[in-house]
């Protein structure tokens, strides 16, 4: 799905316009959102629509935002080390709203190697640690964002 660039050509009045929608979310108590802001900016520059949650969000708030905004991609930034408690709560919330299956869940931050498999088993699509090139993350979203062939 090539996002906006093609649509921005002259007079794209009513062709179906599909932009990839992403929620970039900071969950829990850590107050470091430089990374989240950088990724939000990179997503925007890639032509995605980005909703940024702001700091210190509870899992329920993130679920609410993801559902109401109908995002294709949920990027969770977490540096506090509480990922093993917070991320499952988000995933459970999405599931009970019926939104888990078509949301691509990404995690950014410092996740110990031994926790990664566990998170992925629960439904996290990919984990991006420090130093991941921005282009790599953008490319991953392009390739894996749910293709909703809207019926």
């Amino acid at each position, binding site marked *: 799905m090539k996002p*906006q*660039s093609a649509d921005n050509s002259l007079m794209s009045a009513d062709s179906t316009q599909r932009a990839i929608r992403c929620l970039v979310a900071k969950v829990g108590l850590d107050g470091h959102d430089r990374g989240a802001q950088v990724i*939000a900016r990179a997503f925007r520059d890639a032509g995605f629509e980005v*909703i940024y949650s702001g700091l210190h969000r*509870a899992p329920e708030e993130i679920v*609410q935002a993801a*559902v109401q905004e*109908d995002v294709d991609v949920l990027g969770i930034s977490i540096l506090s080390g509480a990922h093993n408690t917070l991320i499952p709560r988000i995933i459970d919330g999405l599931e009970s709203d019926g939104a888990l299956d078509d949301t691509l869940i990404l995690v950014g931050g410092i996740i110990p190697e031994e926790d990664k498999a566990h998170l992925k088993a629960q439904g996290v699509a990919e984990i991006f640690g420090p130093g991941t090139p921005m282009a790599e993350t953008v490319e991953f979203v392009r390739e894996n964002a749910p293709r909703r062939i809207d019926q």
Partner: protein
Amino acid sequence: MSESSKKQESDEPHTLSDHDEQLVASVLAGEQRALARVLSKIENRTAGYRAILVALYEHTGSTPVLGVTGSPGAGKSTLVDKLTKRYRTRDETVGILAVDPASPYTGGSVLGDRIRMGSAAGDRGVFIRSMSARGTLGGLSMATADAVVALDAFGLDRIIIETVGAGQSEVDVVETADSVVVVVQPGAGDDVQLLKAGILEIGDLFVVNKADRPEAAGTVADLEEMIHLRAPPGDANGGAMGGHHAPDTAGHHGSNVDAADPQNESVAGDDEEVGDDDHWTPPVLETVATTAVGVPELVEAIDRHQRYLDRSGGDDERRRRRATATLKRLLQRDLGVLSERLIETRGGIDSLADAIARRETDPYSVVDDLIGPIESAVERAQTEGAESETNRSQT
């Protein structure tokens, strides 16, 4: 016009697919996820979205729609947050459309208004949806009007549209609203800026936010003066207000709001804005959104405007105007789509432009040529209309 074209949604009959029928039922049953999906379809103009709107439309018309606009950084989102909180204490559910411009270069956007709407977090009685402009001329206001249909049918008690008041497209956006609040921040240049943006004409209520700043009193005075200079109604762009008579409210707002005192009462009194049923003079209120000072008074003033609309028949009037605007927009857009398809049949806009640039032809002839078929169809419709008219008058 229903020939071979396969996937142009404007040609499809408005029948719902089974999936969409289910979706509509879920929206009417109050499922947030279904509403979110419908809003995506509206934004993306997914095939079939028109049929969904047709199905939802009959369930609409009862929800008051508030527009909140103003320059960037004026505190709109924070104010909307506080308004929402207030409505929630009255047990009213609230739907918010936070409309942001998209980057014209990448089409991407960062929609950050949700951050400032923290008090609604975790409360499912509040539905917040961020929308961006998607780079299409007039597309934003159309999508907003369509989104309001969905929120209305969903059964919320109130709908708030929040948008930056920076240009014509944003002004168009609030056309969908019954009451429009223009948020201004204290400081220099407001008067010029406001007049330039044409925003003064659309406000039913004015709010000077950050009223704990020393410049606030001057801004309030400027605004009141400008409101009193505002042209009486008659121009199509005006709000539903009937101008005003004596400027006898001037000087009322001299005092600053004390941010430390949430009970502060220095905001407009109860009975001064409304002259009679035919006239609404927009009040100028002071708020400090961060501490919710002045917000109860704003809610009260919005209620008062609502009552004024009910009383004066302005509500019907405005609904009619809203319907007119929607009709025109829809027509314009669909005609735009049709002409795009026409252009495709002539080799596309690029090759036409090349030919014009090479002076092989000129834009006027090209457009005459393109419009030809449409024109003859219109003429046919006109003669048919005239014939049936004469037939009717003969019988």
